[in-house]
């Protein structure tokens, strides 16, 4: 027969200072765990969520990133007439030549800067990214040195707000609009007209070409056509493949977060163990009485482990609450695959919170098991005789 949970609750209430102190050390551990995982998860999502399944990105063979690739104007003409490209409403091939330039801009409140991606797009470019929408101001007009900045970049970098003038290439460019591209990698960019950008930077080649395939089977055919054309030296891949290959940058953050959390967890479970040993020592007589009343060793073991898990759950729940406010906070780091700033949000997801709770339960069980074992194996006679 199991010992009623009420017994554990009452005991925890009687020793509330100890209970709370133990729970709080678990709270801090769980909070650090959740925050670090939310950081890694946010970075991962912003890269993994980018890309339409039918979009094909074409770069030079051997290039690891768009900014290091180059596609000549002649190649663009060849690409436009490949078979299997979707048509726009105007009946033209849905292709956007793009130019990527990284410029060093100072972050707000700092003198040190970071590389921000400036993307020049062809007229069909924005429609290839359905997440894209203007939230303030308007779209840029070509020939007028106008740019639009993502909301995350506008908020994090100097001179990138609506109406500001940002200096690069041969002079100042006006920010005429702020856009939102969901949680995708495009949400860390500044956009301009591809020809404006090419003229100003004296570039006579594009960086990459993005196009929409007519359907899933056309992707394979496009791959073959490009591979078979010896003149091109280009490598097509789906937009998804390109961004997914970059998500490995979140792995070291995850590993580090786990390492820190595990070390903190060892400390916290020792604290739980201390608390539970003290609880067992104080209640030796009670344990003897329970045994006399007919409760088995097993149910006493279970009862004490449960008590420890209850403390841990309380701590874990508080830890999740403590970590919750970071959800949605924007931060940024450099994606070393593209060597440019990637801005992203901390993401505290329900599954992350439940792993935080599971983590807490684990700490509680480890901390409670040995003391509970001791309680269960006390001999009845000596337990009853103890003071």
């Amino acid at each position: 027969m199991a010992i009623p949970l009420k017994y554990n609750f009452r005991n925890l209430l009687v020793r509330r200072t100890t209970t709370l102190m133990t729970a709080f050390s678990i709270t801090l551990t769980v909070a650090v765990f959740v925050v670090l995982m939310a950081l890694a998860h946010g970075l991962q999502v912003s890269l993994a969520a980018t890309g339409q399944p039918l979009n094909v990105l074409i770069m030079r063979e051997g290039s690891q990133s768009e900014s290091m690739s180059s596609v000549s104007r002649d190649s663009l003409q060849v690409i436009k007439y490949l078979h299997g490209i979707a048509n726009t409403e105007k009946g033209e091939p849905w292709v956007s030549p793009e130019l990527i330039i990284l410029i060093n801009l100072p972050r707000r409140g700092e003198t040190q800067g970071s590389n921000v991606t400036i993307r020049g797009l062809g007229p069909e470019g924005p429609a290839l990214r359905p997440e894209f929408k203007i939230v303030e101001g308007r779209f840029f007009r070509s020939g007028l040195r106008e740019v639009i900045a993502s909301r995350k970049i506008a908020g994090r970098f100097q001179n990138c707000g609506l109406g500001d003038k940002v200096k690069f290439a041969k002079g100042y460019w006006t920010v005429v609009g702020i856009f939102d591209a969901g949680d995708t990698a495009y949400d860390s960019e500044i956009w301009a007209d591809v020809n404006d950008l090419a003229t100003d930077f004296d570039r006579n080649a594009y960086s990459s070409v993005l196009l929409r395939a007519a359907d899933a089977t056309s992707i394979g055919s496009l791959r073959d056509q490009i591979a078979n054309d010896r003149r091109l030296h280009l490598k097509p891949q789906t937009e998804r493949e390109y961004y997914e290959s970059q998500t490995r940058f979140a792995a070291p953050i995850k590993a580090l977060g786990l390492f820190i959390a595990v070390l903190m967890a060892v400390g916290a479970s020792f604290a739980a163990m201390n608390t539970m040993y003290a609880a067992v020592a104080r209640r030796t007589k009670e344990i003897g009485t329970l045994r006399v009343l007919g409760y088995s060793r097993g149910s006493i073991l279970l009862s004490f482990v449960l008590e420890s898990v209850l403390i841990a759950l309380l701590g874990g729940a508080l830890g999740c609450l403590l970590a919750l406010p970071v959800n949605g906070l924007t931060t940024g780091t450099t994606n070393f695959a593209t060597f440019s700033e990637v801005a992203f949000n901390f993401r505290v997801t329900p599954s992350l919170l439940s792993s935080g709770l599971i983590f807490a339960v684990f700490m509680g069980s480890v901390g409670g098991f040995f003391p509970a074992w001791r309680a269960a194996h006390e001999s009845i006679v000596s337990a009853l005789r103890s003071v």
Partner: protein
Amino acid sequence: MWQLGLRNLLRNKRRTILTASSVAISLFLLSSLAMVYTALGKPFEGEERSPRMMVRRLSGITFMMPASFRQRISAVPGVVAVTPMNWFGGYWKEPENSFGNFAIDANTVFDVLDMARIAPDQLEAFKRERTAAVAGRQLMEKFHWKIGDRITLMGSPYGIAPELVLRGTFTGGPDDQFYFHYDYLNEALGEFNQVNLFWIRVERPEIAARVGQVIDQTFRNTDSETKTEAEGTFLLSFISMLGNVRGIILMIGVAVTFAVLLIVANSVAMSIRERVTEAAILRSLGFTSRRVLALFVGESLALTVGGALVGVGGAKLLYGALALRKIGTYVWADMRMRPETILFCMALSIILALLSAGWPAYRAARINIAEALRSVG
């Protein structure tokens, strides 16, 4: 008095060990965080007073400058040596084998890196042969290279894969870098005459800031405005690209500190609560309340500082043995426990011990003797 304290600590050995080890683990973590925090926050060791500077384009290192800038930089008074430096970005055999490989001027690179040591005959061989290369000692060890090895650099954004011959090795400089001729790169790219960086050495560190200003002034209002920075500042800008790493470390550090406080306070409070009667007996035997207080606080101090010694000492030994400085230069070379870091962590552990023992010990020491003797715990 000392003996009494010691006996008390040994009475509940399990609790003492559990508490001390959680303090040890937490302080190990805390001192590791402090180490990374300080390493990321300042110019690297010895770099504060380095006579070397980097000239880059104001708009960022991904932009290039005309190679002809070199003559105008050399002409600036105070500049002793100049080499172009193009990041080549190749790897050896597998993409995992990436390392810093740069195209430089073989004739001047070791005038800029005047602290690096290379055998004179090896340097001669490097200068003479257009396809020659030199590698730092750490790289030689990492990839088990020997002088005379043929090394092909693959996967570079330049789109060429040069076949080079290793003609020398150096030490005492950035020993994780690899250099080959800028002329070779330039020729392979059809005389493109563009440069990522100029690496320069000035006469004395004291004049570095002024020389930098003069250089930047020279190129103001050209198409390629420059920014000249001390080597340390230049490298720090890479770290700042990582984002607010120090802020996150600080947040974790605060959480760990509070966790230690809770753990120690809980353990000390428990052991004091169990001994209220004992404290009263001591008082009735003639111990002043101050001595009883000192006894309890001393116990907490021994517990925390003992644990901290193990944790911080462990970190010092571990990071010393790992020899992170052998992985790379600059920021890696700074990954070690500095005396300030150790001192900071130990001071923190003393504060934590006092804070956690303070209140319960004070109460136990001041309690009414008669009442305490009557209590049954």
